[in-house]
């Protein structure tokens, strides 16, 4: 796994898992690998993966069955969607709007480009 952005590694791993939940690759009740297994697969210290799992557990995206492992929670998709929407509206969109202002682009341009995403 390549980590090239300057985001903390444990957050990048969390993003990867959340993306898989949104895409449907990971479904409710699916078991995710143990901290060590996952660490070995992606070449990352188990402590770092533990931080990811702790964060996702506290958000309710995954849950721990003692002695068995970590699983995707039934409401994971809704939680991830809500978090990502919030992140988009509060962080990513304002950045895009600032950049548009810098480039002298009218926000209406967005509407004319909306066919690109469909």
């Amino acid at each position, binding site marked *: 796994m390549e980590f090239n*952005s300057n985001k*903390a590694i444990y957050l990048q791993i969390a993003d990867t898992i959340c993306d898989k939940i949104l895409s449907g690759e990971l479904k409710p009740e699916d078991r995710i690998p143990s901290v*060590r297994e996952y660490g070995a697969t992606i070449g990352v210290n188990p402590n770092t993966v533990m931080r990811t799992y702790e964060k996702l557990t506290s958000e309710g995206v995954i849950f721990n069955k003692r002695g068995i492992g970590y699983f995707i929670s039934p409401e994971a998709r809704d939680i991830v969607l809500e978090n990502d929407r919030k992140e988009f509206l509060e962080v990513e969109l304002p950045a895009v709007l600032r950049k548009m202002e810098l480039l002298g682009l009218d926000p209406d341009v967005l509407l004319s480009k909306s066919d690109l995403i469909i």
Partner: protein
Amino acid sequence: MIEISDLAFSYGNNLVLKGISTTLEEGKIYGLLGENGVGKTTLLTLLCGLKKVQSGRILTDGENPFDRSASLLEKQYYLPDEVAPVNMRAGKFAREQGAFRKDYDHDKFLSLMEEFENDPSRKMSQMSAGQLKKTYLSFAIACNCKYLFLDEPTNGLDIPSKSQFRNAILKYTSDDSTIVISTHQVKDLENIIDPVIILDRRDVLLNASLQEIEEKLFFDYGNVLHPESLYSEQLPGGFIQVYPNKEGKESKTDIEALFNATHAHKDIIKGLFKK
């Protein structure tokens, strides 16, 4: 657990280590960093009992490693930077040496050799430096020791072997082992070492987990210099700089920048991490 307290060591009149105190816990992969000549190798040889502590003490699970008790020796393995090109096939060497070690697992040795794309039927004296190193690394990990001390393990390894090494360490060592890796090649090991120890001649400047480091310091990859910057370096796309993380922001530790910031501002860093 290894407890080091007020350790000092000198070679004749040449004082190498002084006033070293720190603790190494179970289940962690420590990265031992320090400039040339600060005594990283000396510290490792003291930890595994090859040298005698001159003042202060080391206690590994309550025992002094220099007593070289069988109960402690069977729990630890030290792999030096330079290893002997024995005139023997790697598989035979490992099996014979492994016979002396309680928890040695020959199948694991063979799996590791395969992981490293290394041929156990080759004579070690005919191997390249990197292949030889990988044979010893496979053996070291296959000994299943609770304490594993590796001195510059990625020296001489080619590019694919470096990621094979990372995976081997993560996949084949147990949850409760303590691994200490001394290295200058921090980029080789960036994502697998946690905590980080930065050693200085007269001091342990830092012994902290990445989580603590990221709570206390902010690693900024932007293009505006911060007034409190402890270290900054010009990169093609801007700066990498390190400053105290006063707003509790999230960032990714860059170990080289951390090392340089620590060396430029020893007292500030020590103050920030004081417990």
